[in-house]
């Protein structure tokens, strides 16, 4: 079996057992990336270049990775244990600082920024033996659900169908994992940005509890919502990856002091006796049609609903108790509240980009500092950051903040209350990940309202802080992946892994598990 097809768990086992070296694993992945990834994203790049390639990367750091792999192999040779991620090649969403590498946020305004330090989740993975392959693409500053807003083109394509988006904002992460370019990627999730592209690309995406993983070194979007988390091909790799990065951090006072369990051991405990809830509020979607100005409510497509109901049946056969009709009445307000809260936080976080301390500075001659700010920000930011800044300033202005911001924060309380009440009667909730499979490239981009509504079944976890995981659950009639999703109470990622792993085990024999992404068929 080719080394690049192995899971992280299997790679680490083989490296620690000296069956293969970290350098061999790395070279196998680099060779595969050279075959399938194509041109990296770059400023001014052609969005239509090489439409049969993945384009996950912005920066491949092969030399840095070779040094790390050599260091792992030296440890093994010296009889030391490099750690639970020994020799595992990982990719990192380019919204994290990694020392000595460009850390761009997929924005022109940070295109020339080289990070002087490494983000905590990356540093912890490296300390556990991981080898960082490089930085992968995303929506500019994570602002999107398709990856199309990146200033670095071409953007990732969906490995299962290159005419469709990989999803976003962690699109490079999901595409890289699906296309076997590395078994683990570090993403971030502010409204669904790990779980949505995971569902679109047929991989596992985990948003941990807010505070489970340090945000130190993560370029901030919505500071009360942002969560770093892993994208993987299996639930076991997700458990492995979370265990290696979770826990308190002196550099982030919101990283909670909750002990980190042995997630891999917990995962094996099965679902016998677990109460799994289904909510009618997650089987319908509400969205705002910008063209007609009407609010439209409709059921999720039948294929999506059936995938969830079939999963419930399989979990029941594995010993879980299914509880139907769990009310989650404030689900539909998740996106409108998010439009307010995330914009206020984004506007605040984006004020630091000023053309003075780091990043882009206008080359135009300017008469004063104020003009320098306006030109540097005007030329450096793309449309999506500008949109978020302006909305954030409007809804938090003194005369409007009671009407908008305070109201949104109260509704956030109600969304949280939905989960608190649900978790009195169930251990986890089982829902669809997304209302549809991956949409065509160009199909939604530009309509900022419709784009945001793709996240509506996921964003509630960000408001409430609770963890969520998206797991591959087959394909729709056009051959695109679809995902199912579990929510659990605060810091109960162990329950997500138990439910997800049980589902994986129950479907291991199904024919759809043998399918491979179209982009890999010629490699």
């Amino acid at each position, binding site marked *: 079996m080719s080394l690049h097809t192995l899971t992280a768990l299997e790679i680490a086992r083989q490296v620690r057992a000296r069956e293969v070296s970290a350098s061999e694993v790395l070279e196998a992945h680099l060779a595969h990336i050279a075959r399938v990834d194509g041109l990296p994203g770059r400023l001014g790049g052609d969005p239509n270049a090489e439409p049969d390639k993945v384009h996950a990367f912005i920066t491949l750091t092969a030399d840095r990775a070779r040094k790390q792999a050599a260091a792992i192999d030296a440890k093994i040779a010296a009889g030391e244990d490099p750690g639970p991620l020994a020799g595992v090649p990982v990719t990192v969403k380019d919204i994290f600082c990694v020392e000595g590498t460009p850390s761009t946020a997929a924005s022109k305004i940070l295109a020339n920024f080289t990070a002087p330090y490494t983000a905590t989740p990356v540093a912890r993975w490296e300390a556990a033996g991981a080898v960082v392959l490089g930085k992968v693409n995303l929506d500019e500053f994570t602002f999107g659900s398709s990856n199309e807003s990146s200033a670095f083109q071409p953007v990732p394509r969906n490995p299962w169908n290159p005419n469709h988006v990989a999803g976003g904002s962690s699109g490079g992460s999901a595409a890289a994992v699906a296309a076997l370019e590395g078994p683990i990627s570090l993403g971030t999730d502010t409204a669904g940005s790990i779980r949505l592209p995971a569902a679109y690309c047929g991989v596992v995406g985990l948003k941990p509890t807010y505070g489970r993983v340090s945000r130190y070194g993560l370029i901030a979007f919505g500071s009360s919502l942002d969560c770093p988390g892993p994208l993987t091909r299996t639930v076991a790799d997700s458990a492995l990856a979370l265990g290696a990065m979770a826990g308190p951090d002196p550099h982030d006072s*919101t990283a909670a*002091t909750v002990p980190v369990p042995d997630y891999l051991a917990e995962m094996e405990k099965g679902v016998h006796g677990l109460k799994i809830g289904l909510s009618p509020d997650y089987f319908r979607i509400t969205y705002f049609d910008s063209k007609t100005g009407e609010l439209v409510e409709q059921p999720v497509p039948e294929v999506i609903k059936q995938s969830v109901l079939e999963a419930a049946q399989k979990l029941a056969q594995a010993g879980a108790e299914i509880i139907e009709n769990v009310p989650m009445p404030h689900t539909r*307000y998740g996106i*409108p509240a998010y439009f307010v809260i995330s914009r206020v936080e984004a506007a605040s976080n984006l004020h630091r980009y000023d053309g003075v301390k*780091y990043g882009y500075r206008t080359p135009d001659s300017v008469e004063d500092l104020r003009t*320098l700010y306006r030109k540097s*920000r005007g030329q450096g930011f793309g449309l999506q950051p500008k949109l978020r800044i*302006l909305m954030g300033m409007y809804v938090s202005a003194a005369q409007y903040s009671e009407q908008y911001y305070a109201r949104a*924060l109260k509704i956030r309380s109600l969304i949280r209350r939905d989960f608190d009440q649900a978790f009195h009667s169930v251990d986890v909730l089982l829902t669809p990940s997304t209302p549809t499979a991956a949409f065509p490239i160009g199909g939604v981009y530009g309509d*900022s309202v419709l784009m945001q509504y793709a996240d509506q079944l996921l964003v509630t976890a960000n408001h409430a802080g609770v963890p969520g995981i998206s797991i591959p659950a087959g394909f729709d009639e056009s051959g695109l992946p679809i995902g199912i999703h579990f929510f659990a109470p605060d810091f109960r990622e162990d329950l997500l892994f138990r439910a997800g792993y049980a589902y994986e085990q129950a479907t291991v024999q199904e024919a759809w598990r043998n399918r491979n992404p179209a982009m890999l068929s010629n490699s």
Partner: protein
Amino acid sequence: MSDEITPELFQHLVELAALELSPEEADYLRRELNNQLRAIHELEAIPLDPNTPIASHGVPYTPEISPPLREDLVEPHPDPARLLETAPETADGYLVVPEIPHQRIG
């Protein structure tokens, strides 16, 4: 439906946000702002108990799960010159900027 964000209000926001925009960008941004506000108005349909607390984050941070405050000590950065390397223009360890708008007093 009339636009909540008029061209005048939009211009005021752009000024506050310190952004220079092309006319095409301004058209797109003002249209999308108004579309998003129509979606946001859905929040007004929710009957809201005035005593509903605001939630600035989802997870309740109890003392049991919160890290203790660090001692308030100055920790010098090991290599300030390296941080300055990321700045567009520096001189003698200072960040260089053009004229700062100001008024002379007295």
